[in-house]
């Protein structure tokens, strides 16, 4: 099979396990070609980069991925890279004990993020009257600044910002994992440009395999892995440690069950396909996408072929 001159991988710059592969060059070795790492600042940027065909494979959040698919980007989801468990949490002031008590308070979240979706899910699960909550969008760093002034009472955000809020008197009242029992999943996924994947399926397969190797490496020695990633990305070690630990990593094999993406046949009923549909409904509700644009099922946009090959060849 022919190999592209360069594989363009999109990454957010935060501590994630596949950064181990960026640090040690595993992807280049596995692909047998060079890799261009393209950083992005937000899910919105990813959509633009994909539309402009400047990315081949990218790891990013479920909400923007769903938005992109609704907007008919020629892309597909190939696997889950990590499920957000405790890395994203709802932090509130001491006197607020439950989600329900957020009524009448100001809550901040980063726009178009998995945290945004999780916050809305938390409101639903806890039957919060959304009209009574003042919601503001802020970037994570700005959210910390607003907290320190007392402008906001709670925030749904990820590390290291959650730790910052806790250091300034905040208290966790919910983590994304708590929503899973009610069927609300937030995750990060690997998304490929369909055109690229069709042309170079082996690259996608090898990417998933290296991903699994790096997950294994992390699980074998979390401390050492965190150190490597923190040094490589110039980020705080504590934050790296807790972020990496705050995600769940279903193995490639596990992912082929309906609990995650399914094996193709079971995909329409899988958690991920349903999760995307939920996300789409939520986006339509807040008015960010047109209801008419939402596809009846997201299964056609989840391609499990590569996952199956990655497992079969192992």
């Amino acid at each position, binding site marked *: 099979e022919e190999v592209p001159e360069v594989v363009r991988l999109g990454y957010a710059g935060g501590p994630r396990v596949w950064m181990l592969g960026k640090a040690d060059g595993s992807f280049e070795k596995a692909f047998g070609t060079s890799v261009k790492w393209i950083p992005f600042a*937000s899910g*919105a940027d990813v959509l633009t980069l994909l539309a*402009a065909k400047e990315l081949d494979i990218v790891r990013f959040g479920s909400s923007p991925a769903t938005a992109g698919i609704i*907007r008919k980007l020629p892309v597909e989801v190939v696997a889950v890279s990590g499920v957000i468990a405790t890395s994203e949490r709802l932090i509130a002031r001491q006197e607020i004990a439950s989600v329900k008590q957020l009524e009448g308070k100001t809550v901040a979240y980063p*726009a*178009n993020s998995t945290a945004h979706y999780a916050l809305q899910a938390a409101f639903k699960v806890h039957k919060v009257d959304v009209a009574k909550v003042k919601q503001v969008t802020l970037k994570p760093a700005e959210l910390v*600044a607003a907290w320190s002034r007392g402008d906001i009472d709670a925030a749904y955000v990820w590390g290291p910002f959650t730790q910052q809020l806790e250091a300034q008197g905040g208290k966790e009242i919910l983590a994304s994992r708590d929503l899973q029992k009610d069927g609300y999943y937030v995750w990060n996924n690997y998304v490929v440009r369909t055109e690229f994947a069709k042309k170079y399926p082996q690259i996608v397969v090898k990417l998933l395999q290296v991903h699994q190797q790096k997950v294994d490496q992390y699980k074998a020695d979390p401390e050492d892995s965190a150190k490597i990633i923190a040094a490589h990305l110039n980020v705080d070690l504590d934050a790296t440690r807790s972020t990496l630990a705050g995600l769940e990593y279903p193995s490639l094999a596990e992912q082929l069950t309906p609990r995650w993406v399914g094996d193709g046949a079971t995909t329409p009923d899988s958690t991920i396909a349903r999760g995307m549909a939920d996300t789409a409904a939520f*986006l339509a509700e807040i008015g*960010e996408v047109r209801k008419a644009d939402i596809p009846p099922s997201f299964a056609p946009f989840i391609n499990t072929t590569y996952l199956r090959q990655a497992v079969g060849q192992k």
Partner: protein
Amino acid sequence: MTRTDGTRGSALRRPLLSLAATAAVLAVWQASGALGWIGPNLLPTPTEVLTTALELAETGYRQVPLWEHVAVSLARAVAAFLVAIATGVPLGLVMGISPTASALLDPFVQFLRPLPKLALIPLVIVWFGIGEFSKFFLIYLATFLSVVAGAAAAVASVGRDRLRAAEVLGVNRWQMFRHVLLPSTLPDLFTSVRLAIGIGWTTLIAAEMVAASSGLGWMVVNAGAYLRTDVVLLGIVLLGLFGYLLDLAVVGLRKRVVPWMGRE
């Protein structure tokens, strides 16, 4: 060289030419979309943008009517512009005439002026919170610093002999400032204000990233996050249009206020 020759051709010539050029560009844009040169996800055609405009005019974007997005942004920006001009012009002129004031303040003005206002957002939030004032302040700061720099520079090109003529007529410092320097620098000040307002309007988007839930800048950023390119483009068109109208207003004012420009 027909610079001052306003009489040739009818008074309608200019707006007609402008309209024709705009129409031509819109036609090319529409055609490029219709011929599929660029996917609709990236550059919706003018008709699509128009459809979105009508849609949003009726139903609003994110529960906020379209006109309100425009009004909110204009209110924020115009308030900031007015305060920036009212404070920036005097300070700039003072820096222009007083070497001491200039030595003390110039480093800060020239240090802060080119700073991306985006990078200052966290600090602004710490100082002023996430309310309207922070948004006002970001636009104000960007405009103010440019106005100050422009006004200080304008003083340097006032003719020496004019200042002398005023001095022997017995003006005090304040009068020199108010009645000689200010009018003398008016032509240059208008240019600086035009450029500064452009900068301020540009900062709108950064300002409306601060916990806003309405405004054109916010609309553009937010819709961009969901690849609603039609809304983004509508926002861009409106931002550009109102930016242009603001500029036309300033130019119109200049013609009234500085009739002697170029005829001294």
